[in-house]
């Protein structure tokens, strides 16, 4: 009798996901965030608990679990309890459709793909289920019966709903190239056409990632929390395990955004440059490791943003979403559709599009660098050097 039937394997995978993801959040991402930020900010970061601070996650966990779980007296008790649950469950559910790797052999005659389910509407499912998480934040902010929490909840309601739109539209552009919503199929197609979608979808990727950072309430879009303005925003009145749930929800959200970016734009588990012989040693790294390396780079980008950017103001954030990202995303769909239609049956159109986008972005980057240099020079020239030339226009 075989023990490892596909059903059992699926349950096992779910168990591993639910057990591993919080551990990864607590032990790897949070520690990495604090250590990297420490490095960027000329300080140490946590280095006391365990060797080089590696057990800091455990200490945090013990602290959060043993902390008193307070519910404010005038809070809406049931909703106050439900909100953190709503924040974390959809985020964990969304992980089910993310393909971490292709089929792997576990034993003789037992093999399984490294994902829980290959749903044929995977991308749609992902967008749908992650947007439920918004309710957690809105309801948490409202149920706390605290003015600052309410403002945080209101902000997130507007912000998260607005940024879903450009995010969805950015992914639509990719759908035009893949013709499939299944995340596994998206990766396999990138393998077949020997082209990662990030090249023809450079603009789509840019829009997706900006919207993704906003969706997860991270800098420079961390307005629902905005410590210096709203104390702690929607989670002001949460402590202990409930707070830990919000925390887990936020970080799982980051993982999902990174994983989807990798899957849709960066070839998922595929190794880069499969046809360059000099780089064939890259194939030695197993596919799922490639996935984690790529996703890790995105998490690092998140951390990098956090220690670099100031925070947007609420109205500026909305303006950026509706006046810039949305029109850009719509225009991008038209451009990608034209490229797909221009060369039916082949991917030449997409390759051209990749070159065009690539050169456009390179030119823009060079111009921005030049401008930065010039303004810097002007600024330094404007520093008054002596009493006689003190007034600056």
């Amino acid at each position: 009798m075989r023990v490892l039937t596909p059903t059992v394997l699926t349950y096992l995978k779910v168990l591993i996901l639910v057990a591993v993801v919080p551990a990864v959040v607590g032990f790897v991402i949070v520690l990495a965030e604090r250590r990297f930020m420490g490095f960027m900010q000329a300080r140490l970061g946590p280095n006391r608990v365990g060797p080089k601070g590696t057990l800091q996650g455990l200490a945090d966990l013990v602290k959060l679990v043993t902390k008193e779980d307070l519910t404010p007296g005038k809070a809406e008790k049931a909703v106050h309890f439900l909100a953190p649950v709503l924040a974390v469950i959809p985020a964990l559910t969304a992980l089910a459709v993310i393909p971490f790797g292709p089929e792997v052999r576990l034993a003789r005659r037992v093999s399984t793909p490294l994902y829980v389910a290959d749903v044929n509407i995977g991308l749609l499912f992902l967008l749908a289920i992650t947007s439920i998480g918004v309710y957690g934040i809105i309801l948490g902010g409202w149920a706390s019966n605290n003015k600052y929490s309410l403002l945080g909840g209101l902000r997130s309601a507007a912000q998260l709903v607005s940024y879903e739109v450009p995010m969805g539209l950015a992914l639509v552009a990719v759908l035009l190239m893949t013709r499939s919503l299944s995340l596994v199929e998206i990766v396999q197609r990138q393998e077949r056409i020997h082209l990662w979608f990030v090249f023809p979808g450079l603009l789509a990727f840019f829009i997706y990632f900006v919207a993704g950072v906003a969706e997860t309430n991270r800098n420079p879009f961390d307005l629902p929390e905005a410590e210096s303005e709203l104390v702690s925003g929607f989670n002001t009145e949460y402590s202990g395990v409930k707070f830990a749930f919000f925390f887990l929800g936020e970080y799982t959200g980051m993982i999902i955004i990174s994983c989807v970016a990798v899957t849709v734009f960066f070839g998922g588990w595929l190794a880069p440059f499969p046809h360059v012989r000099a780089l064939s040693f890259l194939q030695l790294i197993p596919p799922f490791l490639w996935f984690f390396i790529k996703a890790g780079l995105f998490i690092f980008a998140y951390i990098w943003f956090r220690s670099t950017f100031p925070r947007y103001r609420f109205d500026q954030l909305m303006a950026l979403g509706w006046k810039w990202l949305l029109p850009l995303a719509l225009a991008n769909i038209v451009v990608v559709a034209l490229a797909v239609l221009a060369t039916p049956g082949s991917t030449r159109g997409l390759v051209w599009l990749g070159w065009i986008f690539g050169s456009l972005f390179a030119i823009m980057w060079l111009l921005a660098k030049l401008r930065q240099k010039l303004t810097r020079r002007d600024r330094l020239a404007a520093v008054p050097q002596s009493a006689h030339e003190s007034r600056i226009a």
Partner: protein
Amino acid sequence: MTDEKQLTEAEKQEAAYFARRATEAGIPHPAVEEPAAAGETARTLFDVQEMELNFGPQHPSTHGVLRLVLKVDGEKIVEAKPDIGYLHRGTEKLFETETYPMGIPHTDRMDYVAAATNNHAFCLTIEKLLGVEIPRRAQLIRVILDELQRLSSHLVWLGTSGIDLGAVTPFWYAFREREQILDFFEEYCGARLTLNCMRIGGLPFDLTPGWVERLSEFIDDLPSRIDDYEQLLTDNRIWKKRTVGIGVISAEECIEYGLTGPIIRGSGVEWDLRRAQPYECYRELDFAIPTRQNGDTYDRYIVRVQEMRQSARIIRQALDRLQPGDIRGKVPRVIKPHAEEVYASIESPKGELGFYCVSNGTNRPYRMHCRPPSFINLQALPRLAKGHLISDLVALIGTIDIVLGEVDR
């Protein structure tokens, strides 16, 4: 029975008196508010209500114990009323109860991120009263301490106002340099914050060996550190979006409010007491007074950052001029000035810091009044905040750079 009735009668009179005073001053008062007006606001299209929000005294970005009573329409500020006094310690009264030299440590606790300039202003006032001549070496060291204090105060401002707008990293850079400055203070006088580093007629101590060399090394390195902060903020699009055009105040309004320091210089007025009424040896030092024209938060930021560069230049020059010599002038053992009233002021990091002293010929001041720049600059906050969003309020509290110890005294 009659007792109680009389009491209520008195209370009624009192309430009527306060209501009359309130209407005269134009302050909304519950007793004089027309009931119809309250009903009207609630019956608009979406039934909009103004929310009253207590911003502080325990709020991460009110920089101490400032409480602002906000009336907000969504996130838009309709009205902001500062409520101060949480840190009131009766410093001015304390001066009256103690001898002149005993007053110096009290000044440390006013603007506690810039103790040296407080000491300086206090000592300068008493010296003016006594007519004491300060030795040149003491003057130069005072200038060095003042400018170091200006640097450290501006660094605290830079770091905290960066955090207020969500930029965390400049805070750590700024505090790294501030720690070094505090190390210099500690080596000089043993304290890091409440320095008590000046005496009437000069200084308590001479510089320790090697202090000058280490300080000049630090000062020569400082401009490149300031470049680091500017790299993170000055040309940053988000930083500009959050600060350009926020809290604009014209030069005329600045003068009407009595605002001083970087605020008035950010509005285009070249007003700096180091130049306008030079004290110690500022007259012979070459430095510029940075000004900007727009009077918004961004310009005040630029002005302060450039002031830091100028402070480094001043310290450099003062260090070069340092010669061995006395550090205290000829001051009587018991300070008993003749009956007179004097006012002396200096350019503190936050603006004009002055003391007004009334002496009656004894060894204690009859009255000591302080002109605290933070208190007077804070007045402009309701005017600046009106119509902006809550997020901007945070930027505005940062940009007027208040220290509550000095506001409340």
